[in-house]
């Protein structure tokens, strides 16, 4: 091989390396997911993160052809982390409330939810002396505080049953999907709790991923990816895998 040809080839190789280097240097997206929130986000037997929200987030990343770095986070930190740009996307079911809307961007809703009041028979919402369990930083917790109820905040959805089982709380505000997982816990079932769907508008409706206001360009890409996975059937498969009925 002549030295001139070798030089040319090395130039081409360098150009390719530079080009692929540029593509790789596009920073991966920081995606926060909740932990211990079955069936939305949890670790399977092998310790891998999975769940409805996690798998939807994976599908969205694949659809966007973006590299995503997943990290777990408590719901109570999610809004601050988004607002501060610590994370780009929060792949958690965030109900759209005015307080949140002031601080973060919402992606296109990926399912619709209701909130349930779980309590011993006869214990009505707002009854005096009733302590209500809710996840810290959740719309349910904010609602209960606004109502002036005494709240017991737990860090994860998976721990919502504990205050009731332990007798610390007499009631809990539980998101629809979390309640399905809790009802598989015999200890929880044994409490013989009554459940009622909450009528408050801010506790019913669309749940969305949160997007950092510092990455507004991500919203269109995430929305479009969500729309595509709804059309191409990926969404339905994930729905069937984690939830007993259609939640969109």
């Amino acid at each position: 091989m002549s030295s001139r040809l070798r030089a040319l080839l090395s130039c081409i190789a360098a150009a390719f390396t530079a080009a692929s280097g540029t593509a790789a240097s596009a920073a991966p997206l920081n995606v926060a997911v909740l932990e211990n929130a079955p069936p939305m986000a949890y670790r399977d037997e092998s310790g891998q993160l999975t769940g409805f929200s996690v798998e939807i987030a994976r599908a969205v990343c694949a659809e966007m052809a973006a590299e995503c770095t997943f990290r777990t986070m408590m719901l109570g930190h999610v809004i601050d982390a988004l607002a501060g740009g610590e994370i780009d996307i929060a792949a958690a079911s965030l109900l759209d409330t005015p307080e949140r809307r002031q601080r973060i961007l919402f992606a296109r809703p990926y399912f619709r939810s209701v909130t349930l009041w779980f309590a011993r028979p006869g214990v009505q919402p707002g009854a005096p002396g009733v302590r209500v369990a809710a996840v810290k930083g959740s719309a349910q917790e904010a609602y209960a505080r606004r109502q002036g109820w005494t709240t017991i905040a737990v860090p994860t959805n998976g721990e919502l049953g504990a205050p009731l089982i332990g007798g610390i709380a007499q009631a809990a505000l539980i998101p629809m999907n979390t309640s399905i997982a809790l009802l598989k816990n015999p200890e929880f079932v044994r409490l013989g709790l009554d459940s009622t769907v909450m009528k408050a508008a801010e506790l019913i409706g669309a749940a969305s991923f949160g997007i950092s206001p510092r990455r507004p360009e991500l919203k269109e890409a995430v929305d479009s990816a969500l729309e595509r996975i709804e059309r191409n059937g990926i969404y339905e498969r994930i729905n069937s895998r984690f939830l007993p009925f259609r939640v969109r």
Partner: protein
Amino acid sequence: MSQTPPPPMTAHRIFVMLAAGFMVLLGGITALLAIDQHRAMVSAEQLQAQTVPEIIRLQRLARNLDHLRHEGERIFSATTPDARQQALYLVMLVASHPGIQEHAEAAEVARATEAFLTEAVRRSGGEAGVDGSRLNEWKLISGRLGLLVDDISVQSAHLAANDLAQISETLRVARIKLAAALLLVIAFLAGTIHQLSRHLIRPLERIDHALSSLDVNGPPPEFPPTQLPEIHAVENAVRRLHAAQVNNEAVRRELEELANRDGLTGLLNRRHFMASAEAELKRAERYGRPVVVALADLDFFKSLNDTHGHAAGDRVLQAFAQLMRDSVRSTDLIGRYGGEEFAFLFPESGVEQASALVERFRHRFATEPVHLDNGVAVRVTVSIGLADASGRPLEVALHAADQALYAAKRGGRNRVMVAGSEE
């Protein structure tokens, strides 16, 4: 107050109007097709943006209603109160889900299902199974759920069918419009070609024919009435060309006459006589016909001029020429040969016949006085030499006639001499 007449329909105006008409027609067709295309695109976009998501939503609704039925069946088949409670809980969740609540009929059926199943579970209490007597009622509710699932499934399928029907209807109408537009264009072009042929091409063909067959001896070209002023102008030009040609021909003939005739006597001049005689001799030789030439010279013409003046000489020459013209046949040639000398050619004549003719002629001239302008009458005689020109060159024949003339002069003048007989 005179009213302005409408501008004439010129070819230029017609072409501008045709082009404008065609552009309007084409523009209109293009606009129509663009509208149809836009409509089809809007329908297709609606199918993509609205109908497909709506179909997916209805399918999810149908699945959830089916799930209600499934959980109901589970309540009836469950053997433990806990299993029934679990199933009932899912019934409640599905029935209260916004996806079902936003559909009025589904919400109503779901509420009824939830109420019935809640009541059935409540009555069963801690029993192993639900009261079998409620099974029939459940079958009715379950059937109602099933029918609603069917209706919603069919409805979702129809959504796409409606959009597709709209698109295909738009395309069908567009096809009809396209066909109609094509017919319109063909009709327009056919009409244009017909009008062009009628008002432009055929008149041009007539003009071409008239030009190629223009004849100065024929009548002026005739054209049928035409509407286009341009064509009319060309036709008038063709008529003017014909008139000019006729005029030129007349002038040419006049000039030819002037060139070939002697100005004083009106007879052929020497040059033209020689050319005509040459041609006549050739013709006679070709057909073996007899021909005779003669030369005549006025006697004592110089003394006439000296006595009475040149005007008198001219008058005598004119009188002589007039007499000759009156006496000869139209086929005979007479020319002024020079001064007071004249030349003749008698086709189809033998020497005797011609000799008799010129003899009569000599005699008549000698006996009829010429009246001069001053009232004096003079008598002038003529000597004539005659020669047979059959089969001889003109110069030879004329030389022979000249010899005969010389002999006539010598013999005393006022006589006719035939070449070969003068000795």
